[in-house]
């Protein structure tokens, strides 16, 4: 494990994704950068519509018309993912990087059995006899904590509970032993108790297999639970990025701060009121110039509405995009200009 620890798996540079709707171009992802190393669990946090899922789809090549990558690069182990032919992409998906989705209720094909769908996932990457594929599928179901896997294989998705189906989805994601697992809000549609079980399960599996996970969520609690690194996204941009401690204890961006303040905490002594973030997200169709969070920001300055803030390094592996972080002295220098 240790040897692999610092191998760079995924490198995303200045990724842009747009949706070309009849009403105009919606820049769902507007230039994001990050790296993912093997064995790392990275959280991507943001509210709905912030582009976190879209970015994951871009990696998987799952973007569908009218959505399209308009700029930047995605490299997996040095190979350019965006330049893959459809054949290459097929063998990449599921095999190198697999993905599980938010709603396990609708993510499994209702007309085929669990076993059929699991075996399909194996067989479209490895040419192995059916009984071996089946054995592999059963092994995976056992791994994700499903009892009676042989019987479950014969059942249809509608015969399983939501938590069970999400376990099946995870098993399906793992069945080809991918290097990265992208989990797109895997717990959002589940009951709280089941959520905790699924998180626990993913943690265990991560330890066991050592794969990297990109964990997309809007739930900061889940992030604290499982992630090493966190990227906070707002309106298609990463506004703050850092290790989980940085984000939770030394948040730099007012949006991150807002997210943290709007999260209920049980460990806090004094009963602070939750503070919601005022306002609504920007209209992605006509984004205003400047910082997208500006209009909702309590510390908004004139420049914030005029010019987009740069990414500023505020610590080791900790960056944030906010004008507030530009040092006072430099501001004075700017004023003098």
């Amino acid at each position, binding site marked *: 494990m240790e040897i692999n620890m610092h191998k760079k798996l995924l490198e995303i540079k200045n990724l842009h994704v747009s949706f070309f709707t009849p009403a105009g171009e919606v820049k769902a992802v507007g230039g994001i950068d990050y790296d993912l190393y093997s064995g790392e669990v990275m959280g991507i946090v943001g509210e709905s519509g912030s582009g976190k899922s879209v970015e994951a789809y871009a990696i998987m090549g799952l973007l569908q018309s009218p959505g399209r990558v308009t700029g930047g690069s995605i490299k997996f182990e040095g190979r350019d993912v965006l330049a893959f032919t459809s054949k290459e992409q097929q063998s990449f998906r599921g095999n190198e990087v697999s993905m599980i989705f938010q709603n396990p209720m609708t993510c499994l094909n209702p007309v085929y059995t669990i076993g059929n769908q699991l075996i399909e996932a194996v067989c479209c990457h490895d040419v192995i006899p059916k009984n071996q594929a089946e054995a592999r599928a059963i092994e995976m179901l056992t791994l994700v904590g499903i009892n009676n896997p042989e019987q479950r294989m014969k059942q249809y998705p509608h015969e399983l509970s939501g938590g069970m189906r999400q376990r099946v989805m995870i098993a399906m994601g793992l069945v080809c032993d991918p290097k990265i697992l992208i989990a797109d809000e895997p717990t959002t549609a589940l009951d709280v108790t089941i959520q905790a079980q699924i998180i626990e399960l993913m943690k265990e599996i991560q330890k066991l297999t050592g794969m990297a996970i990109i964990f997309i969520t809007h739930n900061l609690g889940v992030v604290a639970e499982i992630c090493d690194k966190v990227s906070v996204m707002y309106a298609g941009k990463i506004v703050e990025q850092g290790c989980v401690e940085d984000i939770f204890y*030394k948040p*730099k961006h*007012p949006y991150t*701060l807002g997210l943290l*303040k709007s999260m209920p905490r049980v460990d806090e002594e004094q009963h602070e009121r939750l503070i919601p973030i005022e*306002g*609504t997200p*920007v*209209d992605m169709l*006509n984004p*205003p110039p*400047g910082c997208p969070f*500006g*209009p*909702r920001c309590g*510390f*908004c*300055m*004139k*420049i*914030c*509405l*005029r*010019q987009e803030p*740069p990414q*500023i*390094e*505020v*610590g080791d592996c900790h960056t944030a995009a906010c*004008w*507030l*972080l*530009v*040092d006072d002295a*430099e*501001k004075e*220098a*700017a*004023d003098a*200009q």
Partner: protein
Amino acid sequence: MRTMKLFGWCSFPTWQTDVEPILGQHSYKQDDFFPATAEEKESFIEMKQSLSYWQDAWRRLKKNEVAMISMFIVIVIFLFAFIGPLFMENDYATQVRGDENLPMSWDHPFGTDNHGRDLMIRTMFGARVSLIVGIAASLIVLVIGSLYGAISGFFGGKLDDVMMRFLELIYSVPDILVVLLLSTVLKDPLNDWFNTSTSPLVKSFSTLGPSLISIFIAFGLLYWVGMARIIRGQVLMLKQQEFVTAARALGASNARLIRRHLLPNCIGQIIVTTSLQIPSAIFLESFLSFLGLGVSAPMTSLGSMASDALGGMYSYPHRLLIPSFILSVMILTLNLFGDGLRDALDPRLKK
């Protein structure tokens, strides 16, 4: 490293970062780093003008070219059928001796038939019959179907079970067979009634003839099933929504619930289903008329005209083609307009 007392609740360490390369690229105004005023922030949040449901629907419908063209053609056909006969000399039944089997000409744009009747005026009346049948049948369906569906969905429980069972039974009855059967069976009794009654309403029925009356009866008996199902589904769905529960919790009566909450939310669906029922009723009428089971002579409909023209179809193909064409255009535009209406009234359905 300094501490920035920014947010009040905690201190922020700020890092001395090398911002020169960042700042160097920009030029700043004097007040760039002063707080922005609320107004400035406001100006970035664009408020969309809010439109009422109907305004919004009309705006969407206007944008839909196909639907607008269809609407225009439908209006033209309506004018043709209802205003057109006012400008014609002859009646649909007037037979002019010596004018038999005329080709298309200035006097008789669509020619005449073998009884010397002008085919233009007959086409107008045929279109009129088709439209009347379509609209009347749809209204029957609308009333029975939405009442049945609303009652079944609203009260639910045992009543709903029984009503749905009955609906399933009706659904499995072959409808066209019933129409045929009714028109056969009712022919004599209805004719007797027509002949003995003096009321003007019955007289106007008698021009249409017993077969059309049986179509109406069949629509009243069988065809409301689809509408009832849709409305029931809609009501069931709405009933579970929070705003209905909230209204109920506030002590709203059933009547008020239906009037204020359920009906306005169903109205789009009802309009769309009704508008799409019209072409299918016209379809059915033309089918029966073509088989010789439609309006009674001398009244005509587009289907009967096509049927009448069948005998001389190789010598006078226009007699067949003109009513067929108008009928097809009528059904097509009504369908397209209905589709447009659906897209406009129920944007959720449009992907």
